[in-house]
């Protein structure tokens, strides 16, 4: 019974992905006319693989690098995602460690204050952050795209919960062996917390990879834009949407995320399960 439910759930979950791939291989007319299977034996349409090169061509060409802009978008998305992940991990690990292993005065108050920032809607801080980027001279630079996201409250929270499960005895033993905080952190705590760290990395990667509004607000040139912003140009105009090309572009955008998840899903599941954040 449970397997039947899981199979049905899996099929439902995969439907949007299948729809995306199918739509990316149709002519626009078939998409608009809601033709589910326009190919033989029910239709006469060929598989429209051309939608992929068309989407790439429509996204434009980067004269500086002499490559299609999608390459530039892809490179930017990778740089920003990797930069954000690295920074977030460093700050989250250090902050979570301090909140669990160092007797800072008012440690719990600090933790609650950090958690409280989750309550502030992102949109509320958007304009002040954009103004800061202009004032710092970071507008249209990677700094604007990375630095504001170098800390993650969720990351701190998740790691703190994880670090709290590590027995104190380990720390005491490490101290006796002459280890300091940093050495203990990097040689004992971090390896033990790999699932939680991978989870944070993956969640940050997805958020960073998909981010649209912020990169749009703080960049000017196509060469600084990311994939999500590049994809926007396929979305609705006043007349209609070139859905077939948008889906082709979306398929190209989403594949890296799927590959990454494929290789890390074991850690991801473990990270969520071991911290008690589960349904």
């Amino acid at each position, binding site marked *: 019974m449970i397997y039947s439910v899981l199979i049905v759930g899996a099929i439902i979950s995969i439907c949007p992905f299948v729809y995306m791939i199918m739509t990316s291989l149709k*002519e*626009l*007319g078939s998409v*608009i*006319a809601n033709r589910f299977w*326009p190919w033989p034996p029910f239709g006469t349409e060929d598989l429209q693989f051309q939608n992929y090169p068309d989407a790439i061509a*429509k*996204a*434009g*060409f980067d004269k500086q690098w002499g490559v299609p*802009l999608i390459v530039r978008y892809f490179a930017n998305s990778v740089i920003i995602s990797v930069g*954000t992940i690295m920074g977030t991990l460093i*700050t989250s690990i250090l*902050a979570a460690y*301090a*909140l669990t292993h160092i007797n*800072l005065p008012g440690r719990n108050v*600090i933790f609650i*204050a*950090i958690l409280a*920032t*989750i309550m502030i809607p*992102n*949109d509320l801080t958007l*304009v002040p952050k*954009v*103004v800061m*980027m*202009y*004032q710092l001279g970071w507008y249209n630079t990677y700094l604007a795209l990375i630095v*504001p*996201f*170098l*800390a*993650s*409250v*969720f990351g701190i929270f998740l790691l703190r919960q994880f670090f709290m499960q590590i027995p104190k005895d380990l720390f005491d033993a490490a101290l006796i062996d002459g280890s*300091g*905080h*940093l050495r203990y952190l990097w040689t004992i705590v971090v390896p033990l917390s790999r699932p939680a760290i991978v989870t944070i990395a993956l*969640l*940050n990667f997805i*958020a*960073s990879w*998909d*981010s*649209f*509004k*912020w990169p*749009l*607000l703080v960049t*000017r040139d*196509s060469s600084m834009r990311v994939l*999500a912003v590049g994809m926007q*140009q396929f*979305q*609705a105009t*006043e*007349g*209609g949407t070139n859905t077939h090309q948008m889906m082709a572009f979306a398929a190209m955008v989403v594949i890296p995320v799927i590959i990454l998840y494929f290789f890390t899903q074991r850690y991801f599941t473990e990270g969520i399960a071991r911290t008690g954040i589960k349904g």
Partner: protein
Amino acid sequence: MRKSMFAVLAVIALLIAACGPSATPAPTTAPAAQPTTAAVSPTKPPAVPTTAPVAPTTAPTAAAVKINNPPASAAEVDAIVLAGKNVQVTYWHNRPQKDQDLLQSMLDEFNKSNPYGIKAKAEIAGSSYNDVYNKVNAALQANQPPEISVAYQNQAAFYRGQNAVIDLTPFVKSTKYGISDADMKDYIQTFLDSDKNPQFKNEVLGFPTQRSMEVMFVNLDALKKLGYDGAPKDWKTFEEAACKFAKDNPGKYGWDVGHDASRFAARIFARGGRILAPDGQSYVFNSQAGVDDLSMVARLLQNKCAVEIPTSESFGNQNRFGNGDLLMTMGSSSGLPFFQQAVDKGGKFKWDIALLPGADQPNAGMDLYGASVSVYKTTPEKELAAWLVIKFLGEKTQTTKWALATGYLPVRQSAKADVIAGFKADKTWGPVADSYAKMFDWTKYSLIESPVAGYDPVRLSLDKDVVTKLIQDPKSDVKALLDAAKASADKVLKENAPK
């Protein structure tokens, strides 16, 4: 030592964390609804009035003219000296990359040909007018506006309320840099008129570079079968045809009711009504035209002659019309090739576009779409350079190229023949070129919805508080719905009125 170093590191990490974003990085959803009441600080402190430093060769008296920022008269504009200033102009728009490439190629031409050394650059500021609006508002807060951006008339009014965009009248009238009478006559007059803002004494807060309009799409084969020789020319025939079609074709509908305030506005215009009073001081969509329209909508829904297109079904009317499930629908003329492809793959019938019933009658009209470009308050030199860029983009060659690439209407009459010929030779537009050509004759009926600050929440209210409520309960008192919406719209208008 190591211990204290670590404590310092930990404290720094905590501080960064506390100052960082509250959750994960920037959301992926489209920007939220436009704020219309948020205060936006003026773009820049007024620049020191620029006096013409060198006597210009063509205007010997110009040096004596004091130039305000923005210039208040054509003479002040004439007195601005651009030579040697190497002014840079940035133009924010919402077009996709292929249009950006075309736009930049046109601007490159301008950069090479203008005698003042102006360098213009186009930048994509988003994919929707909302994106550009949000980006402009953030840039205004940082005192970093572009020199030019696309803006709908109501958005331009909002910027003007913050003293952030300028009146282009002195630039248009400038003898040295303005547009000649002959050129002004070549511009489609109703396009120009749409940028005169009633809230600001008819100041010209934008200039048109493109336009489209709300039209009616009709299934000619089905109409013929029902005994009609073309699109209905009055609302009684429209209603009758819709119901005949629905009756003869179970599961199909004569027309659709979409969740779009512009569709409602277009019908009001076609009935001789207006959304906003001519003086811009109150909304008037609760007039008899509004009551008649919503009464018709209610009857069509109650009699199962019309069907709702839910908001989740984006451009659903194109699909349904293309499949032959709707006799008539309405939409932007820029959807022409989408409709063509839907019909080609769907019902494969003869179709065309038409005026909304009654739109050619006295006092009636068509809903005109299309943002203009506005110039931000920076310095008189930059403002003039921005104007010269706009003037260049409005020339016949440029507006023809732009119309051919985007499917919008060009802004000049003289471009008509070239644009239609170009469309006929184009694979996408060829099949709809004749339909497109009709719109040139319809431009004289153009009307715009509401060029006042704060119109966006009113648009939402028209859908949520009027159209949606009527769909949910077609027996509603339409006059009461309209009166209530008008009252709240007037409140928004008052809140956003120029202070």
